[in-house]
């Protein structure tokens, strides 16, 4: 399902977090959302999965404004895997976690039917979590957990996947396996990724956010130019497609001092981060 973000403005505690952000994810595409810490990536995702109401602008999933949909209707279209540290999953098994994905398909009186069991079972198989389906979620490794959360999102039977740093803290093999899994789902995806190399591997297009605004958007090679990497990320680097078809980034030994990334921007980034931390903590 197509995602359209149109002239989005987000303000939190009178601070502007996103200014005039517009982007599109075409049906079936995987789009990476990258940018320095505090550039507004997670905030943008929150507006997509209907957690944060923008001050101005519209987020449309499948053509409809997400705030015109009920929370459940929106969740039947969009599933999200987030860096959510607020909960407490002690005592839930892997299957029970995956089954949470069926929540938007039921009202208060709804009970799981055959359709739900099929969706749960299929998601478990697709993400390869069958071997530990009966285990306590808390007892899993980081890589296993992320696959379970992806299975939960797939059990939602979404038309759009929103992923926030899915590969964080994982070893390299687990990262690559997750990228393959995401590709194999075939679902339209908007993914926040910190690692530019992984973003280049996974995504068809990239959207670069810097200080709450879109700095560049388009196919990976067209976007990750030396100038942009210097301006936005403060590093000297080159991007090229290698003989095996993979796009790789080669970084210079040291970050740019002085010129590349002006000091005031760095400061405001720090502040943004602190502010984001406060506002997401409640």
């Amino acid at each position, binding site marked *: 399902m197509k995602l359209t973000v149109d002239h989005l403005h987000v303000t939190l505690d009178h601070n502007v977090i996103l200014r005039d952000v517009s982007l599109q994810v075409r049906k079936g595409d995987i789009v990476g959302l990258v940018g320095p810490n505090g550039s507004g990536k997670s905030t943008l995702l929150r507006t997509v999965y209907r957690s944060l109401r923008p001050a101005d602008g519209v987020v449309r999933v499948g053509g409809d404004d997400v705030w015109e949909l009920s*929370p459940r209707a929106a969740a039947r279209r969009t599933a999200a895997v987030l860096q*959510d540290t607020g909960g407490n999953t*002690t005592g839930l098994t892997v299957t*029970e976690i995956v*089954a949470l994905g069926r929540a938007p398909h039921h009202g208060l009186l709804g009970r799981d039917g055959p359709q739900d069991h099929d969706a749960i079972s299929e998601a478990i198989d697709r993400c390869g979590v069958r071997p530990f389906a009966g285990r306590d979620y*808390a007892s899993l490794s980081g890589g296993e957990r992320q696959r379970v959360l992806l299975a939960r999102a797939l059990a939602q039977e979404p038309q759009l996947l929103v992923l926030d740093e899915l590969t964080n803290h994982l070893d390299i093999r687990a990262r690559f396996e997750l990228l393959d899994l995401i590709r194999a789902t075939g679902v339209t995806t908007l993914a926040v990724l910190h690692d530019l190399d992984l973003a280049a591997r996974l995504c068809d297009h990239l959207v670069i956010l810097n200080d709450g605004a879109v700095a560049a958007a388009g196919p990976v090679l067209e976007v990750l130019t030396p100038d942009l990497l210097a301006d936005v990320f403060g590093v000297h680097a080159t991007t090229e497609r290698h003989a095996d078809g993979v796009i790789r980034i080669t970084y210079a030994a040291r970050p740019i001092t002085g010129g590349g990334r002006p000091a005031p921007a760095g400061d405001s980034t720090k502040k943004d981060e602190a502010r984001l931390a406060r506002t997401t903590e409640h």
Partner: protein
Amino acid sequence: MITAISIGAVTIPVADVWTIVAHHITGQGATDDPALDQIVWNFRTPRVLLAALAGAGLAVAGAVLQTLVTNPLADPTVLGFSYGASFGAVLVITLGGIGIGGVGVAGAAFLGALATGAVVFALGRRRGRLAPTRLVLAGVAVGYVLLSATSFVQLWATPTELRTVMFWMLGSVAGAQWNQLPVVATIVLTCTALLGLFGRQLNAVLAGDESATALGVDVNRLRAVLLVITALLTGSVIAVAGGIGFVGLMIPHLVRLTVGADHRRLLPLTALLGAVYLVLVDLLSRTLIRPNELPLGILTALLGAPFFLWLLRRNKGLD
């Protein structure tokens, strides 16, 4: 339950209890001993029923609150509801019902719990959202204020009143009467059934607020609605049974440790175990030092805590 009714200061054979209870329900086969009938039907039966209702209500309220504020230590006491009820009750016990427009102890306790719920609710809001940590801290702070106020009021109490206050604060179902049961039963059963409907949404909250939102749960509204229901539930229980502690904290954890955290299993089993547990504790409270009685609050923790600690040691999934 029938066994619990048969044992007490006077032990009555289980068969006789059956006959008496059956007589009152079906109207057939009366016993020839009016004293026995009196004990069984007018004292013990309402008492055991109240213990079951109170246990179920407090335990379910605790289970829901622990999830709502993502805090394993949450229960009606931590959120201040119990202290609000105590303050209301103590006020009426020491000052007499006249000053507060003739509200009885139970009514004052109920209003106290609800008023506290409203205050905690208001303090827990920030920019229109109910924040879990804020709620807990507001509950604890308000609880301390009410506790001081309760102690202050007690300075004017006579020794007899003090004894009543103490017994009330530790909880007891000894005062159970038929005429108050229908109200309590209606509130407890309705609230428990309502809370049971939210099992799936409560499960989603376990994944964290943002994830629950992405799963289609309006977390803020869920928190508001369930806080009101739990305040109502605990208020009505405490109003008639006093400040029975520990049940709301421990029973949910006991059930979680045995059957897991899925609320669709957790809530009904918590209600059941809470009911059974409080019936047993009440049984002990009136038999241990026969013919005198112990307050429930002394026994709930004394019996439950060691078993709970044993279960905690056995469970490895909590680290």
